[in-house]
């Protein structure tokens, strides 16, 4: 019960954020980098419901766009990690032997450095680009999918119901589709929410320390750092993006709890 409740709290927060960011972008027809230098740090008004920032850009539109960006980037890195992770995990469990050893060695190679350090190494080649960030994140995140899928599939493959379907002559793909993948799904969901929150934290942290996505792109981490010098006058502008990162990560973590025991 407890887990179900936290799952729905997380889901509601996420749906609220999605509505908030998409609606506010549709209603307010600004570009996120549309400047109005005669109207900086404007107070909230009908034209700018949350006021404007140091270049007179609309805060609500920027926050909305940054929220979508964070979520979207986290989603595509997670999908990129999820596909090879799960496929190779099943492959390693099924084939065993050399394939299994080889894939595990690749994991050990990637795990030789802490995740963020590996991303930083890739970023060093072209700071500010999204591509190295994306590749780095996917390289780190697939490992978790791989390891857990492999373990779980391995234990499923020796279960009596799988063995008997095998001896009845059902094909491997049939067994995979009907017996193995349904059992893997809840666990894959948990890892996906985890890896999405990891990705969101990594992306915003890296742009906050000036090596990730760069201004003027509206990104939550870089918005916080950009606005920090103006904290005394406009504390709200610094706290708002921080609060949104917190909400996204919180909702993902709450949702991930549900299937841990499943």
């Amino acid at each position, binding site marked *: 019960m407890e887990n179900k409740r936290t799952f729905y709290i997380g889901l509601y927060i996420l749906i609220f954020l999605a509505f908030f960011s998409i609606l506010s972008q549709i209603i307010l027809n600004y570009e996120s980098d549309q400047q109005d230098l005669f109207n900086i740090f404007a107070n909230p008004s009908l034209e700018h419901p949350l006021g404007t920032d140091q270049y007179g850009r609309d805060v609500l539109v920027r926050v909305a766009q940054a929220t979508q960006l964070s979520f979207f980037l986290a989603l595509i890195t997670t999908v990129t990690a999820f596909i090879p992770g799960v496929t190779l995990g099943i492959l390693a469990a099924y084939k065993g032997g050399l394939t299994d050893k080889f894939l*595990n*060695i690749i994991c*050990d*190679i990637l*795990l*030789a*450095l*802490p*995740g*963020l*350090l590996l991303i*930083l*190494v890739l*970023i*060093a*080649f072209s*700071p500010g680009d999204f591509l190295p960030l994306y590749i780095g994140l996917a390289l780190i995140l697939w490992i978790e999918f791989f390891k857990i899928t492999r373990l779980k599939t391995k234990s499923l493959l020796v279960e009596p119901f799988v063995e008997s379907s095998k001896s009845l002559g059902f094909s491997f793909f049939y067994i995979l589709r009907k017996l193995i993948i349904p059992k893997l799904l809840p666990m894959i969901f948990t890892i996906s929410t985890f890896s999405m*929150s990891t990705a969101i*934290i990594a992306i*915003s*942290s890296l742009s*906050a*320390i*000036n*090596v990730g996505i760069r201004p003027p792109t509206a990104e939550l*981490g870089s918005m*916080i750092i950009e606005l*920090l010098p103006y*904290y*005394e006058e406009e*504390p709200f502008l*610094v706290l708002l993006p*921080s609060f949104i*990162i*917190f909400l996204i*990560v*919180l909702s993902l*973590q*709450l949702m991930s709890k549900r299937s841990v025991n499943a």
Partner: protein
Amino acid sequence: MFINIFIKRFFQVIVVALLSSSIGFLMMHLLPGDIAMRIAAGRYGPDGLTAEIAQSVRMELQLNKPLYEQYLISIFNFLKLDLGYSLVSGNSVIQELKVQLGYSFVLALLAFIVSLIIAIPLGIFTSISKYKFVNNSVMLISIIIRAIPPFVLALILILIFSIWFNILPPAGFESWKNFVLPTLTLCLGLAAVSNRLITDSMNDVQTYSYFRYGRFKGLSQNITIKRHGIKNALIPLISFLALQSVYLIEGVVVVETIFAFPGIGHALVHAIVARDIPMIQGTVLIMGLIFVFINLIVDILALNLDPRLKEKKYNGK
């Protein structure tokens, strides 16, 4: 068993060394422009740059040799621990790293110890106390802290302690006061996770038969916990150390940069922004080696503390 652990970790040491030695080589050759010109410009300034100087740099660094030979030379230099000189400050990389590593090490160690000081009593307390309100609020606070990325936590602490109350410096390095906020940021993040872990494992321990036997033979709740509970509850914490070291190393990079703390993580980010290739190589090498070393220690500790593991065949995690 021990042999397997050592082989795996030794393999990772080689990976770290090869990776960090290759970064420099790859960056040199992948980035646009003539390498010798670029290095000469870095050394003597763009104004003092002439074709002759560039030529002498090329000869000195053996950039006129074929690529594979250059690569072998760069790896050979690396093996001699000749990490070169920072392109920004001109000091030798080893010299710089020695100073920075000291600061980061103190920071990480302090954060780790303080996190244990907070988490262990709190975790045990929430496991045995009957006050629902206290337990729920501790859990709520840990959930909230876990959802705040380190850099946001750092900013919130700066806002509270440096801007509102003005009692601690937000950045730089002058006195012990500069240690307080970075340490607090890292240790709160660590404690929020380990406190939950200790509560869970303490709850587990209380259901085991040896614990209940202790209660049956007449020991009080407190004594049973002290003699039989705490030690056993801490075992999962050891294997969790590996994850904590990931958090600490990643946290050191982010938190040091936010607080302009003169440690190795700040140096790495700085080097990436300034394209200071020798420094990038050096910092990645050192941090990678420390990480592998911590993992090795954790493996050995876990094996020694929990003899049950020895019976199973060690096959990685």
